């Protein structure tokens, strides 16, 4: 049944290996996790705040995002997830989800039972360490987002988000060119940066005028990574990956 995706969890193994070196045996154990493939439309919910999850989705294709709503219904996006990332390691030992996880684009996920992950961690201590470190890196990204929204002006804020996205895609070898697909609306970009859509639109146009970004529908390109990085005040240290020196 899993035939077309026999090596579906390869991306997850690669992601975990990025933060903590795993032996071949450990990587095989990850590939052997029982899972169920599901195709999802954009906007599909994977997890809702208040759910008591019994499984963890691994994103195989497409993008997903985490968000929360305030009491007044305003939405704040907390993270954007890319293929290879597990969408629910954050809730591993917590009973109740404290945020929503939704597909940003159409995509494919592999559902893994939480018990299977717990058993894997119990039997393979190094995989446990790798998953722990991965959750810590996610926490580091949340910290950086507090800084981004709390202290950076709108121009740096948006540039920072774009830099992070590109850097993470490169780090996971999901993209090797200088052109990135970013299927995010201006409204979503606003919700990720604590700005209004009108403000985001103005900033994107300014970045484009200054030649910092080039956009063609969903595709975005940075003519000069160095200039973009400086505008964004982007230092990849918080992503804790090997330095790509790009």
């Amino acid at each position: 049944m899993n035939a077309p995706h026999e090596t579906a969890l390869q991306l997850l193994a690669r992601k975990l290996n990025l933060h903590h070196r795993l032996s071949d045996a450990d990587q095989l154990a990850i590939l052997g996790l029982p899972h169920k493939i599901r195709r999802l439309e954009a906007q599909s919910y994977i997890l809702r705040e208040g759910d008591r999850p019994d499984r963890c989705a691994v994103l195989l294709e497409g993008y997903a995002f985490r968000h929360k709503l305030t009491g007044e219904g305003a939405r704040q996006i907390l993270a954007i997830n890319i293929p290879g990332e597990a969408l629910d390691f954050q809730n591993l030992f917590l009973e109740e989800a404290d945020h929503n996880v939704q597909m940003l684009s159409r995509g494919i996920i592999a559902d893994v039972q939480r018990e299977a992950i717990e058993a894997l961690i119990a039997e393979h201590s190094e995989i446990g360490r790798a998953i722990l470190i991965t959750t810590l890196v996610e926490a580091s990204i949340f910290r950086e987002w507090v800084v981004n929204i709390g202290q950076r002006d709108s121009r740096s804020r948006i540039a920072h988000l774009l830099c992070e996205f590109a850097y993470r895609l490169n780090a996971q070898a999901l993209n090797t060119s200088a052109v990135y697909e970013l299927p995010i609306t201006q409204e979503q970009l606003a919700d990720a940066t604590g700005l209004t859509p009108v403000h985001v639109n103005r900033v994107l146009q300014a970045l484009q005028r200054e030649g910092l970004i080039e956009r063609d529908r969903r595709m975005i390109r940075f003519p000069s990574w160095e200039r973009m990085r400086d505008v964004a005040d982007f230092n990849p240290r918080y992503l804790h990956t090997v330095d790509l020196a790009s």
Partner: protein
Amino acid sequence: MTDASLLGALFRRWKRRLRLSEEDEAAVVNLTWARKQYQRDAYLTREGEHVKACTVLLQGFAYRQKVLSDGSRQIISFHIPGEFLDIQNCLLEVADHNVQALTRCLVAIVPKELLLQVMSARPAVRQAIWLDSLLDASVFREWVVNVGRRDAKQRIAHLLCELALRMEAAGLGHKPLFDFPLTQEQLADATGLTAVHTNRTLQALRKSGLIALTASKLTIPDWDALAEAGDFSERYLHHSV
């Protein structure tokens, strides 16, 4: 208090959530650690450092912050006794933020290698430490929401609610009166507001009777009213787990 009972407090907090054995307790209480005092504002860890030890806060308050290239500071979290300050920096090799003493602090410094040994020998202890870091992450997420989508009054009220509830859960205070060692500048840096705006907002909260703030003491006369003003819902603290 004896040294053993100091880390015992950490263990008791874990025990409220997780099933831990006497062997687990012995492994934690018998950890080798050094006691260290820090003065107010002293740095425990600086961004970029290779962290070789993990710190547990025993007395006093501490906070984490990051500084931007233009010098502006964002506070990322506050910490109360019984919490790990540096588990993240310690396991991630290179510190991605600064850790600073908010008040005079007493901390237990556990060498990284010893902690890793206990974590691999005692899976339940590893799970407890892991759970702590997931709870930290949940608080970071809520702070993203706080600075991103709440107005000044909500932001500050939310932060006050969080601190009060965490202290109460840790047995360090009771409604309506709490220790409150933050300056207005720190409050501003934690909420992404200017010092002037923070001052005005605090005055407004006082005037409407939602808080009283005197000499490092915070009084919350009507918890429900402040929680409502702060759009505060405690799910993200996962206290009921």
